[in-house]
């Protein structure tokens, strides 16, 4: 009961936080690219675009930062047994993330927001790049911590805790680099699709079409390259998963018995207990995903369960199958939607019609939701598919909770976070859509700053 409440709270706060993270990473990089184009070419239009998308970036980033504090605190608050067990290893990348990444992104964000006109154009450009690098470093270190939960390396268990034996092994973890490249490229895709969608809206309303056509072309090109990268790295990750977390792979396909040349079902009607009413299947695809071979063997849930029970003692080691099965497909499905939009953009751009095809512009506007959904389902799959483990093979989730925090307290805070986050989410979406409607060249806030007195930006 308490474990379920703790898990719900972690799910609510983390899924919510992660709505803002990829878009912030992606937009920071795209704004930095736009500002670089403005600086290099002395181009007013790119400068205005950098400011315009910079505001959308800040509105998102503010919520990402505010909800990020919860992320760090809740390990100790709700998962104190976990914290004691993993602190030696998990805590280190978290602390390093703070020192290297959080200080960098927050300090230079302040300098970027308030420094226009006060810093030289070159230095001001450097600040947004440092913000961008900070957001990327942040992703790297938090994923180093997460990768260790999926695939523990460089440790030994002593008493009630795992101790670090090799920090480099932590950083060289194959799971880390698969997760990082996949997540980073997904973040760039998210930023690209937001810029594309907002630009499409402007083009549909025929507002400042010349400028937003440029933004749309840049965003479409970035999204196309990034989403192809997401798929390649996702494929790499699937093969690692098959090797390191075979149960997660089997759950992703609801594959009950070990098979060679296993097929992949695109969708299933009926239940996932092994006797579907109707399925669309692609032959050999699962073997290709998991093993990169036509007739490769993919382990089934029953066999892995028997193996894990023999290794760790009698218990169920099967995650929630429908959740794994459908989140995996939804992640891939929304990725394919993005790929389709990006290829469509490429075709139109070659015919110089990208900014005029109303069908395409409407599709781009609607596709803004796709990266957010793909990101969310991807993480739900990664984390739910690891269950019942919190640290794969080392600690079960029900062993990880805080023994002194009662169900009443967790229920109270779960309700509190849900209400607070919902209110802030509504405000954020409202603010984003209002700012997306603002004209490109609006008069800036009455900035009274000069070289001698700080500006009134807020």
């Amino acid at each position, binding site marked *: 009961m308490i474990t379920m409440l703790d898990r719900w709270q972690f799910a609510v706060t983390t899924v919510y936080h992660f709505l803002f993270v990829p878009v912030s990473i992606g937009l920071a990089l795209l704004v930095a690219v736009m500002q670089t184009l403005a600086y290099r070419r002395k181009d007013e239009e790119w400068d205005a675009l950098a400011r315009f998308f910079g505001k959308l970036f800040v*509105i998102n980033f*503010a919520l990402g*930062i*505010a909800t990020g*504090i*919860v992320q*760090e*605190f809740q*390990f*100790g*608050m*709700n998962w*104190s047994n976990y*914290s*004691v067990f*993993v*602190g*030696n290893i*998990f*805590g*280190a990348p*978290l*602390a*390093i*993330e*703070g*020192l*290297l990444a*959080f*200080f*960098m992104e*927050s*300090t230079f964000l*302040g*300098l970027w927001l*308030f*420094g226009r006109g*006060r810093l030289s154009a070159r230095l001001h450009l450097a600040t947004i790049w440092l913000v961008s690098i900070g957001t990327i470093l942040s992703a790297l270190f938090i994923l180093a911590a997460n990768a260790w939960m999926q695939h523990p390396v460089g440790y030994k268990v*002593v008493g009630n*805790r795992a*101790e*670090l*034996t090799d*920090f480099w092994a932590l950083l060289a973890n194959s799971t880390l680099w698969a997760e990082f490249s996949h997540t980073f490229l997904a973040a760039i895709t998210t930023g690209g699709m937001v810029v594309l969608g907002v630009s499409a809206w402007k083009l549909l309303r025929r507002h400042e079409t010349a400028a937003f056509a440029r933004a749309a072309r840049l965003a479409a090109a970035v999204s196309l390259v990034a989403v192809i990268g997401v798929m390649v790295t996702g494929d790499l990750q699937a093969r690692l998963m098959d090797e390191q977390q075979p149960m997660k792979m089997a759950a992703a396909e609801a594959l009950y018995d070990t098979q060679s040349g296993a097929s992949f079902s695109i969708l299933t009607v009926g239940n996932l207990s092994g006797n579907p009413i109707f399925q669309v299947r692609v032959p050999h695809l699962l073997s290709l995903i998991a093993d990169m071979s036509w007739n490769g063997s993919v382990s089934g849930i029953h066999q892995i369960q028997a193996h894990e029970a023999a290794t760790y003692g009698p218990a169920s080691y099967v995650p929630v199958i429908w959740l794994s099965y459908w989140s995996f497909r939804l992640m891939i499905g929304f990725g394919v939607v993005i790929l389709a939009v990006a290829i469509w953009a490429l075709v139109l751009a070659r015919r110089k019609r990208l900014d005029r095809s109303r069908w395409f512009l409407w599709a781009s506007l609607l596709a803004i939701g796709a990266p957010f959904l793909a990101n969310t389902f991807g993480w739900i799959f990664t984390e739910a598919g690891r269950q019942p483990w919190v640290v794969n093979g080392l600690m079960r989730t029900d062993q990880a909770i*805080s*023994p*002194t*925090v009662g169900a009443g*307290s967790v229920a109270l*805070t779960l309700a*509190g976070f849900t209400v*607070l986050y919902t209110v802030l989410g509504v405000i954020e979406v409202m603010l984003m859509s209002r700012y997306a409607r603002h004209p490109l060249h609006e008069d800036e806030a*009455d900035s*009274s700053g000069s070289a001698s*007195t*700080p*500006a*009134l*930006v*807020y």
Partner: protein
Amino acid sequence: MTPVVSLATLWFVLIAVLWTGYFFLEGFDFGVGILTPFLARDDLDRRMCINTIGPTWDANEVWLLVAGGATFAAFPVWYATMFSGFYLALFLLLFGLIIRGVSLEYRGKEHAAAWRAWWDRALFVGSLIPALLWGVAFTDLVHGLQIGSGFHYTGGFFGLLQPVALVGGVAGLALFSLHGAVFLSLKTSGELAGRARAAARLLVVPTAVLVTALVLWAGLDGRGGPVPHRIPATIPWTLGAVAVVAVGVGGIGLWRERDGWTFAATGSAIVALTAAAFTSLFPRVMVSTATGRSLTVWNASSAHETLLVMSVVAAIFTPLVLAYQAWSYWVFRGRITRPPVPDLHS
């Protein structure tokens, strides 16, 4: 017995430094948030107040995140016991920090008066809650809590609200408010700076009284039984006295209208008080009211490899971080002046 000079001790010191930096920096941010509704006469005044911390508040808050992360990595047991033990209090704190952060970024994004008024309330409440709670939390750590076997805190939410901790909370609130008032007098100009100075003059005596009460009450206590390697009591006592004296020196600075050294004085008071807390703690990190149950730098710390890696990373990057954060304050030096308001009626 583990030697006193060890990496665990080094990390105790580093975490103390992180908290000290956090209270010094975010202390005035909280004070600004609390005092803005009282000092500002119109929207432009409110904007001037908020813009004194606008470019830097976020990096100030990172000191807390790094203190939390460093505690997790270097003292997992401390992190686990404290964060789970303070569960509901930390929820309140997070609630405050979230609405404060969002209010700072969102307030100026719309012009409607009602929009801004709501975020002003959020900024006030979001600054007040943490300013009050940190004093409660740190007094609890030093004064002692019901920590039983397995290092579990068993006192519940109301166990945190012991009388001495409440005094600590109010003293912290007063000190942060004073620090914020002095910061505003230093960073604004004209009538607003004058009102900030007046507010500081009003706050200085109650703050001195509360800090004195806190030092005497919390400092006189010696619970949790004798612990080897404690720092001689004269050191935390002296630091506590320095905090009181620094508030007094701030009072003189206010009277002479020397904003710079007044700010140095209130800042020193925060530094001295935090140092007093940590020196009276050492080698304990959370004091238990039961003998022999306190968490210490030895029984709560990580193993050697983690501490070593963290030490190397900190040695390389801390100077860099301090340099660019200091540079950002340098960039935004100077007072904010009230911009001439265009007369819309002429």
